[in-house]
């Protein structure tokens, strides 16, 4: 067993080194495609997390002017209370909204705000979700009202944008993964071709089939692994440094899960590529 391990390691490294340009090409293709896969996965999770947070409770927000008078506030409040299409309303004072801004916005943005700049708001749940638009048009021009927003609609727009982006990423990644498999297949084929004399002697003297095959399998495996490790670095860097608002920021569990997927896919791609090459070109 020890003899074999040494032999397999030596053969694998020699093959990788002999085909180093092809190896680099294969590894980079795996890395780029898996980075795209990882980015798409992160994007999807971020969007899901953000929309889940936004959809909790509030569906329509009536933002008052920061300097709205008490009577204007009372007017809007009583209207909201009496309208049958509004089920429930919560009032957020300027101080409360300031705290929320502090939580959501990056420091560079909220630090220039003071409590008196922030609008107070009514967070309302319409009886039927589609009534959000009626609420919007009703209150938009009410005195003292700054704006009425329905996150539902924006979330929907954002989600569909993200979905398109995700499909594009995954389609690109699919094409690249396919070419990565073919590249790995080709490097293994070249390795087999370079060693065809050795292989024929090995068969002649009775080396077992797996003895002959394993160095080529590990070669593909290592190419896939190296590529996915590069992709893991890229995905982690993206997660760590890309400036995202708090709602989008994922915890480390999500990052670990994504990286695990990236690693597994890379290793599978490498192994499949070499297995195909062995089936087709290594006649044992």
């Amino acid at each position, binding site marked *: 067993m*020890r*003899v*074999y391990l040494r*032999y397999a390691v030596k053969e694998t490294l020699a093959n990788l080194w002999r085909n180093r340009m092809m190896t680099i090409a294969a590894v980079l293709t795996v890395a780029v495609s898996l980075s795209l896969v990882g980015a798409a996965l992160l994007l999807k999770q971020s969007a899901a997390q953000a929309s889940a947070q936004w959809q909790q409770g509030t569906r329509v927000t009536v933002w008052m002017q920061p300097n709205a008078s008490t009577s204007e506030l009372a007017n809007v409040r009583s209207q909201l209370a009496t309208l049958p299409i509004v089920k429930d309303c919560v009032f957020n004072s300027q101080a409360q909204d300031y705290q929320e801004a502090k939580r959501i916005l990056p420091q560079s943005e909220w630090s220039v705000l003071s409590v008196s700049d922030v609008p107070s708001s009514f967070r309302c749940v319409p009886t039927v979700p589609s009534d959000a638009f009626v609420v919007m048009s009703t209150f938009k021009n009410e005195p003292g009202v700054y704006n009425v927003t329905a996150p539902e609609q924006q979330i929907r727009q954002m989600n569909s944008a993200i979905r398109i982006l995700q499909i594009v990423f995954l389609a690109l990644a699919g094409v690249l993964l396919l070419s990565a498999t073919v590249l790995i297949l080709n490097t293994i084929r070249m390795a087999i071709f370079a060693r065809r*004399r*050795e292989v*024929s*002697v*090995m*068969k*002649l*003297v*009775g*080396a*077992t*089939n797996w*003895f*002959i095959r394993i160095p080529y399998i590990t070669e593909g495996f290592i190419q896939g692994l190296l590529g996915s490790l590069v992709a893991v670095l890229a995905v982690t860097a993206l997660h760590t440094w890309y400036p995202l608002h708090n709602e989008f920021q994922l915890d480390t569990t999500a990052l670990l899960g994504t990286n695990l997927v990236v690693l597994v896919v890379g290793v599978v791609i490498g192994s499949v590529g070499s297995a195909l090459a062995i089936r087709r070109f290594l006649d044992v």
Partner: protein
Amino acid sequence: MIRFENVSKTYKNGTPALKDISLDIAKGEFVFLVGASGSGKTTFLRLLLREELPDRGRILEAGRDISELSKWRVPYLRRNIGCVFQDFRLLPNKSVFENVAFALEVIGRPRSTIESQVPQILELVGLSDKAKNLPNELSGGEQQRVAVARAFFNRPLILLADEPTGNLDPTNSESIMALLERINRTGTTVVMATHDKALVDRMRRRVIELDHGEMVRDQVRGVYGIDEPMEIR
């Protein structure tokens, strides 16, 4: 040691390679396989190595039907069969020592065994002083002796030689033959396909002649030519 029972083999393109061959080769025998090119000699050897399977009939080696051998056991069968070819089949980028060592390494022999066995076997074939040379620095005869060393290191039960003297001058042919005889005397069954008439005539060993896939002669102490009196067993 080797038994063919009504063995026939036809290749996919329809050329019959062997037709209904039945024969017995005892342990320790030295057999010449003669016949024109395309008479089926190489197919005969390939069947023994289980590189091909017969279409009909059975081939037994050491009492075992090799067609029934599962695929993963074929390598172990081959460890008991040494092989020598006309074109030597040495690895050009490895030294004489490494060529023989490679064959031991790939069947999983530990380094210590290799270090002790390879010099012994090189001594046997008379190449101790060439251990560090590359194959292209050797004469044809020397290269073939390396190939014999590689085939014999495992003390195989059977040694197959496919025209081993085909690329050699008479002197080198003699030395290879002497080597094969020595190996034969240790109890290894030797089957040698050849075109070398002088050699067969001089050795006076069993001769099996194939012609278009049929066994036309099996002579105990035979000669190459077919104009000699025949003694069919």
